[in-house]
């Protein structure tokens, strides 16, 4: 009973306190939200610490059970340990720490991101086909916005940036707002059911 009931009760109580802390004048004067935020900040830092421990547990398990690609778990633990010790001992602005970060992490992450440029091109080649009215509209509007995002669009015609701005400002904004509002109510209602204790699947 406690495994599900206690966390649900705690969630509901804290949610009500946080909500009313931002609404009620008396609670605002007592800086209730500010105190809770300090505790959330502390818990966030603890979660970071726990996340590190969990990561190590998971990979030690992989190594112990000799799961597929276990050798990469060894490498991960070595790198994790090295960066943690170096960061704690010398700080994150230490030349070695920064040098390794700039030499290893930055190029690897940037390379993965730059693959997007190539993949988007092949995706656009496949997707922008004049099969029906929808795809024609997609193609034409995409072409205008793409050309307006580089200087050559303005060189070809000064109307291209104007049309692109109109597409972004009017239909684009309207659709983005509609989807955001729809998403908000979906998330809002789902969050409320957690606060009301009606959703317990994450506790099972």
């Amino acid at each position, binding site marked *: 009973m406690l495994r599900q009931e206690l966390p649900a009760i705690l969630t509901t109580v804290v949610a009500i306190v946080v909500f009313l802390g931002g609404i009620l004048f008396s609670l605002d004067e007592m800086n209730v939200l500010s105190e809770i935020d300090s505790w959330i900040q502390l818990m*966030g830092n603890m979660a970071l610490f726990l996340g590190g421990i969990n990561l190590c547990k998971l990979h030690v398990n992989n190594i112990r059970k000799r799961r597929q690609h276990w050798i990469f778990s060894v490498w991960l633990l070595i790198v994790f340990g090295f960066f943690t010790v170096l960061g704690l001992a010398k700080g*994150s602005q230490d030349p070695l720490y920064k040098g390794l970060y700039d030499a290893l992490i*930055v190029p690897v992450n940037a390379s993965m991101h730059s693959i997007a440029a190539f993949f988007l091109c092949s995706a656009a080649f496949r997707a922008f*086909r*004049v099969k029906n009215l929808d795809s024609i509209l997609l193609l034409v509007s995409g072409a205008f916005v793409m050309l307006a995002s*580089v200087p050559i669009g303005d060189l070809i015609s000064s109307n291209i940036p104007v049309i692109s701005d109109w597409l972004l400002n009017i239909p*684009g904004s309207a659709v983005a707002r509609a989807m955001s509002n729809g998403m908000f109510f979906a998330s809002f209602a789902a969050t409320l059911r957690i606060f009301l204790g009606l959703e317990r699947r994450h506790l099972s």
Partner: protein
Amino acid sequence: MFWKKIVDLDPKIIYLFVGIALMIPVIRPIGLPLRISSYTQDFYDYLMSIPEDSIVFLDLAFRETGEAELGASVLPVFELLQKRGVKVIVGGQWEQAPFFMQRRLEEVADRIGSVYGVDWVNIGYKPGGTATWRVMMEDFWKGAAGVDCMKNRFEDLPLMHRVRKLDKDTFAAIIIWEAGSPGQGTWMQYAPDIPLLAVYMSGIGGNVRYLRSGQVKACIGGMQHAAELEKLTGTYGDAIGLLDAQTLGILVVLGFIVLGNIAWVIEKNASSVE
């Protein structure tokens, strides 16, 4: 047969042409003329209207993957504000950017004579999410744990003595370089009364609705606006150089799209005749 091959073109051929198109301008810049758009002009005008000796918060909410597009506009903005005598506090809702941009900011600061601790401070990334920022709004020193990214104590940094709260009385504006979430939503929700300027990755796109509703005072996005800002501020850097590559890349993509559609239509007609 030829057109069928075009319709079913191996993506690797597209990658090859795009790769070449992106590399050529990097090796040999083309130097296409650049027109300043209204978005960039409004953004620049807002920066110029910030009073001297005010304090502005720069939220570098991106990681190294966003450095090319977003990082390109951080330095011109920083230099412009510092040259105008506007004080700057740098921080970030994401871990990486305040960390790896520190060196580049130091280079600019050294070049223009800005003094760390007096004219600008980098508080770095503070874990804890939105709770941390809310604490900073009530008590900046407490929320930031009283130290900057290099573990200098706030007591030893003269500028920080003017920053006790993250509110509209302390900061004239917040400028956010946003690559995703968490991002501008934090400021819109918890600090709606502090003027917000935004720099978006990959263009403004659907974010223009925040500009239209007034939640963002001015915004720019993507490499083109970063290049325009470099031109306006007179700091010629990465963005202007890389914009040519982006231009050629987009032309190659559009060329393939047109070719693909021509091939598709011909192939479709040929198969219906058969």
